[in-house]
């Protein structure tokens, strides 16, 4: 009897173990790849994820963070090895490449009409390619013109410039009065950052990256004018010549230490430069507006810097991944972390316009920019396109070739 009892206990114990083991196996684990740079910070993403896991005890999320420069290569490498992530953060310039090469899952059917209508149009370009959606937009961003209010005041300039020509004229006054050596600082390093600044000027000058047949058109009209503007601003001594080695963080360093009157940068610089005394010597002096335009061409220049969340084709937990993505991009979560990255929801900006917020200048710059967002080319070989164009732009900026020659050479190489 005792033997029977012991056996029964053993069998029960074993079944209990199996049952619990089974339960543990049923728990879905999501591997997610994010960026540790600008936009939502690592601690933001961890906090959002913890909030999600509270209501989803059957899910576990493994988070991985990499610098922006590695994000693209991590995603393609994981696809190349046939395993890896269930959720990935990706940039607005990659959906064509990821769609054509079946790296991301088509989620068109998962997005309802209501969501489609409530999200900013510029945000949708991050995930749509040839009328199919490859994820959910997560943040929408553009670069704005930041200016040092105190310096403009000292130079007797009442309003921030509305056109790029005005900006150059203002910069010359600031330089002449000896307020700073180089009034404008840019991110013109051989990287994607220089393409973003160029895209803003190209739109202002009414140019195009590609013509309607998909051939390079940046070497004519507005595209050429934009590069001439950049090169001339170095020659005139108003652009900080060190810009050719700078990325966005270097621009923030120069502007925040009071060594520039004007700078182009993303949303994240506003809070850091204007309100954080640990990071900035110009607290309370930072103005921000949508980037200027060109008289007679375009009243504004912008660059779509939105990012999206997608599900790699190789993921085995696509439903769970989508549920997590929906939570991260929900209006409540996005509004909570709006200081890190502008939300994708139109309602957020409508609400913000009604309130008297301390960051209302930023809100106005965002609203004006998001209405006019310009895209970099949506081509599957974008990385190569961008690398060649970066080279051409730097050639002209460093005085190794005229803007015409540099852009013509790049255009003819890229059309082959």
């Amino acid at each position, binding site marked *: 009897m005792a033997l029977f009892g012991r056996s029964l206990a053993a069998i029960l114990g074993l079944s209990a173990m199996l049952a619990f083991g089974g339960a543990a196996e049923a728990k879905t684990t999501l591997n997610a790849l994010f960026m540790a740079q600008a936009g939502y910070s690592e601690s933001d993403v961890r906090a959002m994820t913890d909030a999600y896991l509270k209501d989803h005890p059957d899910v576990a999320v493994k988070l991985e963070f990499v610098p922006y*420069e590695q994000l*693209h*290569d991590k995603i*393609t*490498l994981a*696809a*190349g090895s046939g395993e890896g992530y269930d959720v990935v953060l990706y940039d607005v310039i990659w959906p064509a*490449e990821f769609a054509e*090469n*079946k*790296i991301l899952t088509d989620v068109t059917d998962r997005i309802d009409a209501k969501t489609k209508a409530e999200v900013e149009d510029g945000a949708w370009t991050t995930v749509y390619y040839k009328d199919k959606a490859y994820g959910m937009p997560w943040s929408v961003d553009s670069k704005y013109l930041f200016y040092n209010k105190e310096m403009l005041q000292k130079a007797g300039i009442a309003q921030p410039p509305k056109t790029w020509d005005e900006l150059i004229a203002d910069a010359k006054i600031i330089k002449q009065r000896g307020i700073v*050596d180089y009034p404008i600082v840019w991110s013109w*390093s*051989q*990287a994607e950052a220089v393409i973003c600044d160029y895209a803003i000027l190209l739109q202002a000058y009414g140019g195009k990256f590609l013509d309607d047949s998909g051939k390079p058109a940046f070497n004519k009209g507005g595209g050429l004018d934009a590069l001439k503007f950049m090169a001339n601003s170095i020659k005139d001594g108003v652009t*900080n*010549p*060190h*810009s*050719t*080695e*700078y990325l966005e963080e*270097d621009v923030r*360093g*120069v502007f925040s*230490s009071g*060594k520039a009157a004007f700078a182009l940068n993303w949303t994240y610089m506003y809070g850091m430069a204007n309100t954080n005394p640990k990071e900035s010597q110009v607290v309370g002096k930072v103005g921000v507006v949508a980037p200027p335009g060109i008289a007679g061409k375009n009243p504004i220049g912008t660059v779509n810097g939105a990012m999206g969340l997608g599900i790699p084709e190789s993921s085995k937990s696509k439903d769970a991944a989508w549920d997590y993505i929906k939570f991260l991009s929900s209006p409540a979560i996005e509004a909570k972390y709006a200081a890190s990255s502008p939300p994708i929801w139109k309602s957020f900006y409508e609400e913000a316009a009604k309130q008297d917020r301390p960051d209302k200048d930023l809100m106005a710059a965002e609203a004006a920019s998001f209405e006019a967002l310009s895209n970099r080319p949506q081509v599957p*070989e974008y*990385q*190569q396109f961008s*690398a060649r164009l*970066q*080279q051409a732009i*730097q*050639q002209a900026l*460093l005085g*190794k070739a005229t803007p015409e020659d540099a852009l013509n050479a790049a255009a003819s190489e890229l059309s082959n």
Partner: protein
Amino acid sequence: MESRGRLLLLVPLLVVLVAVIGWPLVNTVWLSFTDTRLGGDAGSFIGLNNYIHAFAAPAFRRALFVTALFTIGTVGAEMLIGLGVGLLLDMDLWGRKFLRGLLIVPWALPTVVNAMCWRVMYNPDFGAVDAFFQQIGWIDEYRSWLGDPTTALIAIGLADIWKTFSLVALITLAGLQSVPKDLREAAAIDGAGPFARFRAVTLPVILAPLTIACVLRTIEAVKVFDIIWVMTRGGPLDSTKSLSILVYQEAFSFRHAGYGASLAMLSVALTLLLIGAYSRAVKMQKVA
């Protein structure tokens, strides 16, 4: 029987080596003859096309040139400075022990940390390098060292030399310990000057370890990636794009896995040549 037993004990290690080195190597050789794209469908065999394309491509020739310049410049300077410092620290200096300890610091610093420190020092608006040169009157105004194609590679080279000359100095110091003291004293008594003593007594003993240090440093320099990636990522105007940076860009950014593999194989071939030189240096040491 005993030797078979020994071989049997080596099997686990060999299996691991084949799995982590052998198989990827064979796979890379195969990839280099195909037009495989990363993340896309498997490519097809295209013979030597990737290699022909590489030799015709200005980007490859340019990267080869950048790599050669970096290697000759940094290894040359590291050998000279390392030898000098090694000889100096062998002398009866005040605080010699402390200085010898200090020598290990740059070598022990992770490359990425070293690269980031130097990037800050070279910063054209706040950097210590500009401040120093301006104060001693060499430059009128601050300039960009890493943003100018004529100075970027030199600036990275200096950062690399600072980090690695100490390895050569340490090897020199170790070699100098086996120079017989009485031989040096005898040479001095015989009236040999410092230079003659160095050439006839010291150099023959430390030549072999120095050769090995030189070859090892050359192999490292040919493969250079991390210090450039952190400081300039190959810019400005590709002036610091070494072979390894080019391989990374082609294979992972542009997803040309096949072409990237062929460039990597060419880089391996170059390294193999240097390993040949290394084996010869080792043999030479045995003879000595």
